[in-house]
C-alpha cells in the first residue's frame, strides 16, 4: 500500500447522501480522498478494517436510529490513530461527549470551513503545530490540542 504522505484518507459517516456527496467533493477539491462512507453504525462495521484511515467526519444522528457517538467508539477501536471530527447540527448538545472524538465542526458549514479544517488538521498531523490559523468554527478537545502541539 503506497500512500501519498500529504494526502489524507477520510471516512464520512453521514446518512444524508447529499451531504456525503458535498463533503466528498470538498475533500477531493482539497486534494484528499474519501475512502469510504457509511450511513449507519451497522454499515460502518461492514467496512474493511484493513484500509488506512487518517480522519473521519462523523454526523451525530445516523440512519436506523444509530448514533455517531457509537460510530466514534468503533472508529477509535479499529483505527486508533484516526482523527474523529464530528460534523453536526447539534454541536452544543454534543460538547459533553466531545471526548469520544477530537473535534466538532457545526452544521451548517461553509466550504471555507471544511477546506481550512482539512488544511489545518493535515498540517497538524504531518508537522505539528499547524502553520495556518485555527478555523473559527472548529472546536477541539484537549487531546487533539496536545497532539497538534497547540497546548
Amino acid at each position: 500500500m503506497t500512500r501519498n504522505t500529504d494526502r489524507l484518507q477520510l471516512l464520512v459517516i453521514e446518512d444524508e447522501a447529499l451531504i456525503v456527496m458535498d463533503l466528498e467533493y470538498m475533500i477531493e477539491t482539497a486534494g484528499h480522498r474519501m475512502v469510504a462512507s457509511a450511513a449507519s453504525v451497522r454499515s460502518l462495521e461492514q467496512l474493511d478494517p484493513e484500509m488506512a484511515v487518517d480522519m473521519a467526519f462523523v454526523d451525530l444522528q445516523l440512519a436506523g436510529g444509530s448514533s455517531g457517538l457509537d460510530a466514534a467508539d468503533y472508529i477509535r477501536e479499529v483505527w486508533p490513530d484516526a482523527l474523529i471530527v464530528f460534523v453536526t447540527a447539534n454541536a452544543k448538545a454534543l460538547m459533553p461527549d466531545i471526548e469520544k472524538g477530537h473535534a466538532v465542526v457545526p452544521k451548517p458549514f461553509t466550504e471555507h470551513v471544511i477546506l481550512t479544517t482539512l488544511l489545518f488538521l493535515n498540517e497538524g498531523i504531518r508537522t505539528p503545530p499547524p502553520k495556518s490559523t485555527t478555523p473559527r468554527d472548529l472546536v477541539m478537545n484537549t487531546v487533539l490540542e496536545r497532539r497538534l502541539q497547540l497546548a
Partner: protein
Amino acid sequence: MTTHEEDWHQTGDVAHDQGRGDPFAAAVRSTRMPMIVSNPRRRDNPIVFVNDAFLTLTGYDRDEILGRNCRFLQGVDTDRESVDRIRDAVAREEPIQVDLLNYRKDGTPFWNALFVGPVHDDDGEVQFFFASQIDVTERVKAQQAVIRQNAIVEAQVRDRTRELEKALKVKEQALEEKTILLHEVDHRVKNNLTMIGSLLRLQMSAIEDTGLARTLEKMLERIGALATVHKTLHDSSDIRRFDLGTFARGLTGDVISASGRDDIEVIDRIEEVDVDPVQATALGLVLNELLTNTVKHGFTDGRSGRLGIELRPDEKEVVIEISDDGPGFDATAIPRDTLGRKLVERLSHQLGGTTKWTSSSEGTTSITRILSDPA
C-alpha cells in the same frame, strides 16, 4: 376546727336567703359572680354553699345543689382532660383555672371559666374549696370561630398552594416540551441549510460558465450569512435578543477569510449592540452584501489595506459604517440594478432605515442606519 365549720354552716344555713352575717359573707351571697364552696372533709367533697348568681347561671334550685359534688354540671361534651386537671389540682390542694363545658338544668351547655382554690385555716389545713364561675360561652365561641376560620383559611391556602404547584409543574412540563421542540426545529433548520449549501456547491462544481458559477457562489455566501444569523440566534443565551456585535465581528472574519485575502487588516470599532431578532435575517444579508462588496471593490488588483467596521447605538437606531481605504469610486455611477445593490436598499428600508455611500480618494464608506427595535 369543728367549731369553725359549724360557724360557717350556721351562717350558710340560716342566712342563705336573707344576706345576714358578716359583710364578706353578704358580699359573696349577693355578688353577680356565681360562687360555690365545697367541703373536702366530707365524703366526695360536697357543695356546702351556693350563691344566688350560681342558681341563676345553672337554673337549679339550692336544695338540688347542696350536698352534691359539682361534677353534676358536666355532660357528654365536657372535656375529660380538663376534668382530670381539676381533680388533680384539688387532690394536690392547688388552685386551678380552666375553661370547661358545663350544662344547665335544662340541658343547654355553657362555657364556664372556672376557678377553684383551696381555703386554708391558720394551721395550713384545707378547710374548703372556693369556686367561682363565669359564663364565657360567647368568648369561647368567638375563639372557636377564629380557630375554625383559621383552619378554613389554612386549608384554602394549602389547596391553593397545591393547585399552584400543580400548575407550575404543568408549566414546567410545557416549557420542557417547548424547549425540546425548539431544539428540534433548530436542528432541522440547520440540517436544511446544510443541504441547501450542499446542493448549490454540487451544482456549482458541474458548471463551466464562470459567470454563472460566480452567481451561485454569491448565493452560497448569502446562504452562509443566513446560516450564521441562525447559529448566532440559537446559540445565544437569550433568543429574544440578537447580538449584532458578535455576529458582525464573526461575519467580517468569515468574509475576509473566505476571500483568501490575508493582506486586509480589520479596524474593529464594534460596540455591543443587541437588536430585535425580527431584524436579524435582513440585517445579516445587508451586512454580508456590504462586506463582500467592500472586500471585492475596495482592495482590487491585490492592493492591501484596511477595512473598517464600526457599529454603535444611536438612540433608537443602530449605525453601521463599513469603510475601505481604496481609491474610491463615483457614487453616482454605481449600477443601481444589481441584485446586491437592490438587496441592500430594500432590506435597509425594511429595517426602518437607509444605507448611503460616500466615496472619495481616501476610500469608500457605507453608512447604514436602521431601527434597533421595529415599531
